[in-house]
């Protein structure tokens, strides 16, 4: 039943896209829907190239636009701050510089110039999150950002400028408001970032080998849950690096097949191997057959009668192939 519903939904979406795409492809130039600035003014095509880095000759401006040179007469620092950033790539037809420059994002500037109070311009420090997002999404509407609408961050009313700064970024890449990515994420996700600092078992985040965005797409994920970047499930994300666990195996272990986070905390843990709780307690949450799985292993098992169920890697001293076995004798993951 779920399959049919899903297929029907996809057919509906596909039909919608095909119809609209047909309309887009076969429409006359300029007939496409409104885009560009939120005031509805269409974004002109890129100006001719051949200009110096980050700038281009000012074509005749549409009504209400004054051109970047006028803006920079008062806001030269803002122009300087864009140098070397993608927003200033005049040769890139997708960049604001190739369209209306400053006014691509801040809106037409004529009214602002004429206004003694210097209003009538889009000031990103003073407008609602939705308007900020709509402006940025005019261009950032594909690839990494295609899943923004309806994403968890969008639903929680975050704006693009919550994490990014166009004119005064602190990070060397991605124009973040903080010097490092984890510093941005930790402002809301303290628990998860704190777990990456766990001393015993952690992802190599603090060593600089991984970051939050190695696994998550903060702009939303079209394909996965938890804003995970890769695959269609939590397991597929984990297995994008830990492909050895993917299998399938001849003898599968059910929780492994369905959800890695049943046993592991992906952000970090005080237990070996990032387990949610140490062994043997973890295994004893599901295995209570007679004899050794359900034996109470107390302090005597590490002092008086030292037991290999308690010291070292505990259950995995024997059940090593716990993620599944490809051995004919591997039912209990001993081989």
């Amino acid at each position: 039943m779920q399959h049919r519903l899903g297929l029907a939904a996809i057919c509906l979406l596909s039909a919608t896209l095909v119809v609209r795409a047909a309309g887009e492809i076969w429409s006359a130039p300029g007939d496409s829907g409104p885009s560009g600035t939120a005031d509805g003014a269409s974004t002109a095509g890129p100006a001719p190239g051949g200009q110096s880095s980050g700038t281009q000759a000012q074509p005749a401006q549409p009504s209400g636009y004054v051109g970047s040179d006028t803006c920079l007469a008062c806001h030269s620092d803002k122009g300087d701050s864009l140098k070397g950033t993608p927003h200033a790539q005049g040769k890139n037809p997708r960049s604001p510089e190739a369209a209306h420059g400053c006014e691509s994002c801040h809106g037409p500037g004529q009214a602002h110039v004429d206004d003694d109070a210097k209003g009538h311009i889009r000031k990103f420090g003073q407008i609602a999150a939705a308007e900020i997002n709509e402006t940025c999404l005019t261009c950032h509407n594909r690839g990494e950002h295609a899943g923004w609408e309806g994403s968890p961050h969008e639903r929680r009313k975050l704006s693009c400028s919550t994490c990014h700064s166009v004119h005064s970024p602190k990070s060397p890449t991605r124009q973040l408001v903080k010097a490092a990515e984890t510093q941005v994420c930790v402002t809301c996700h303290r628990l998860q970032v704190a777990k990456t600092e766990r001393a015993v078992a952690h992802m190599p985040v603090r060593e600089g080998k991984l970051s939050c965005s190695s696994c998550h797409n903060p702009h939303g994920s079209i394909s996965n849950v938890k804003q995970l970047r890769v695959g269609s499930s939590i397991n597929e994300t984990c297995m994008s690096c830990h492909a050895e666990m993917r299998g399938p195996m001849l003898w599968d272990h059910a929780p492994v097949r369905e959800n890695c986070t049943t046993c592991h905390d992906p952000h970090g843990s005080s237990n070996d191997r990032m387990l949610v709780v140490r062994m043997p307690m973890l295994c004893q949450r599901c295995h209570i057959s007679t004899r050794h799985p359900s034996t109470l292993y107390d302090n005597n098992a590490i002092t008086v009668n030292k037991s290999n169920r308690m010291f070292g890697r505990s259950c995995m001293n024997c059940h090593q192939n716990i993620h599944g076995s490809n051995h004919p004798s591997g039912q209990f993951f001993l081989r």
Partner: protein
Amino acid sequence: MRRLVLVHVACWLGVALPSAAQAQIAPPTPAVADSPQAPTVRSSNSPPAASPADSPPAAAPADSQPRLAAASADSPVTSDATTPALSSATQAAPAAAPEARSLFEPTWHQFQIGGRFTNINGDPARLQRYQDLTNGVLFTDARYAREDQGGNWLFRGTADNVGYRDQRYTASYERTGRFVISGRWDEIPQFYSVDTMTPYTGSGGTLLLDNATQLLIQQGKANLSAWIPLAPQFDLRERRDIGSVSVVATPTPEIDVKASFTTTKHSGELPWGGTFGFGNDAEVALPYDSRTNDLTIGTEWMKGRNMLRVAYNGSWFNNLADTLVWDNPLRLTDSSSSGPAAGRMALWPTNSAQTVSAAGYSKFQRHTQLTGFISYGFWNNDQPLLPFTTNTALPQIPLPRATAQVSAHVFSTNLNLVTHPKTDWQLAARFRDYKYDNKSPSTSITQQVSYDTSVSATATGGPDLFAHNRATFDADATWSGFHPFALTAGYTFNHTDYNARIFDTTGEHMLRLAADAAGTQWMNFHAKYEFSDRTGSGLDTNLLTEIGEYADMRHYDLANRTRNQFTGIVDFVPNDLWTFSVSAGLGKDNYPDSYFGLQETTFRTASFAADYRLPSGLGAGGNYNFERYSGLQRSRSASPGPQQADPNRDWTTDTAETVNYFSIYVTPPRFGRNTEARLTYDFSYAEGSYLYTVVPGGPLPPPSQLPNVYNKLQQLHLDVRHRLTPRLALALSYLYEPFRVYDFAFDPTVVNSIVQPSSLVLGYVYRPYTANSFVISLRYFQ
């Protein structure tokens, strides 16, 4: 040593900070001012003061919206964008020459070369679990960018930790508006232990012991201790080497064509258990050698209100050492009653996954967007099956087939609709379906060889073909008419079908309420409450009893469960100097129908943070996190027979973990014009406890409670940089890192030898360390 260091740092700060603050408020030198935006005195970390017409005096900076909460102490942050309130107060001062950029501000023309000196007292492996801090010449933090004058192309390259085990290189070349080619080489070490010893020798997947010693032990003339003098120390390490290249081409502004290839070589050794029975297990250093290749090809078309994307992903995992053979420490020859001469284990099988996918969205009126995704994947493992046993003294059971022939089809669809029917309303609905369809043939395996020692019947007659199909429907409504708050009510229904699990299906209803306030210049607020109720149906207790489990056991990943949890965070920005943040979370999962297994779990978290920043560049902040997790589970200790039905043999475990984390950072203003410093300190203390409880008066003896386990990590980072010339700086970095740990399972007093009762182990233990690491270098920048 620790006290000496802290005293020196405190004295240094006590003298240096006031001096620096005094230097910052000294009258600036006048400068020519010929524009309305002539800069006044400012530190290099904040842009020029805004003119009064550009932003109201008390407003937040024009392009930071809204101000974030206190940063973590991972590394010190540079100043926020602007502090217009104070900037306007200083506007009356005459314009001064602009200060040079901060020495901590990265540039695209820089590198650092010098020497690193690290002293480690204790376990060097724990300190360097994922990094290489060995002594030597250090060339790192190299950044290079070059672009042509016309903005037609841009090249960037980076290099870090050159020549060390954790070295990394990246490069990218961009033809503006046409294509981007980028590459990366990254090495991630994993250093397990220097305490490991093993008598095993060999290479590839075959680990051998000394035959003479094996024979002596087999004949009863020696015991496991005979292996001790034959076990030299070695470092237990593994490593991932990751190389990737990607291309994004833009033939037209509407189309992106993407291709990427990543190859990962995973090699080294890791601790691995090889057992020959309850009284004989051997931990070995498993040789590991695999390569994973991933290829992605896709194209995306985007125009106007529509986007369409198609992609292919291929992934091939190739295990070059997929079989482990290891000698039996107690025997040299095969026996039908006493075990084999060697064991043989199947390691991770070579496998592949191929996935095709399509995604797209279409925008409509009233800010409505419909987004969809569909993918189909084929997972496959057809590795040759090993024989049932390597023990030649046992009957050889015929294989069901020559190769594994296990495969799965994975089908996923997502559909997401968001609309704004009115200005203050947002409605969203999502449907997601994920199906893992096990296509493996049914396999009859009625007998197996346990531990290569004895033939026994399998519990299930063959492998269970686990499969699942998960469908999720989610909808929520958000009203933002009460500015700045947005109130959300949402509902989610999860339905999952299982194959070969104790429940046929589970259904989970979830209700959530959320309140968010964003877009103000003085406060951010996010809070969410979730309630969910999961119920399983189609319970088949035979799946439990056939493998010897109790019929009252419930597996917590699909058992009936009720969940309540609340999380919230509030950031206050009362002015341009201070930022405060408070967060809290608590939750509880109950498993009301699980007599055995997990009964409940809880969590409680709280955090407090504060940031202080002056326009002079002085900044400081602190953050405290508290976390507590607990879990209660029940079991029954019994032998087969009448004991199984005796509830007086029940016992419970109450596990709890408490974590306290504290961090501070100080970003002092410049000392003079040319010297800058950063200081961070992190402290983390985690403690775990395990409380056993038995039935009073029952047949089980009162348990001897386990000792608490703990780990404590401190990190003090001090970085000082002094400008020697406009392009050269002297950089001094110091890391002080003491780590203390106790875990009874890995304590050296417990794992006090490679020979343990019934076990030959590697000797891998948890040990403390204290590290002092200095880096003295020259930093070139431009």
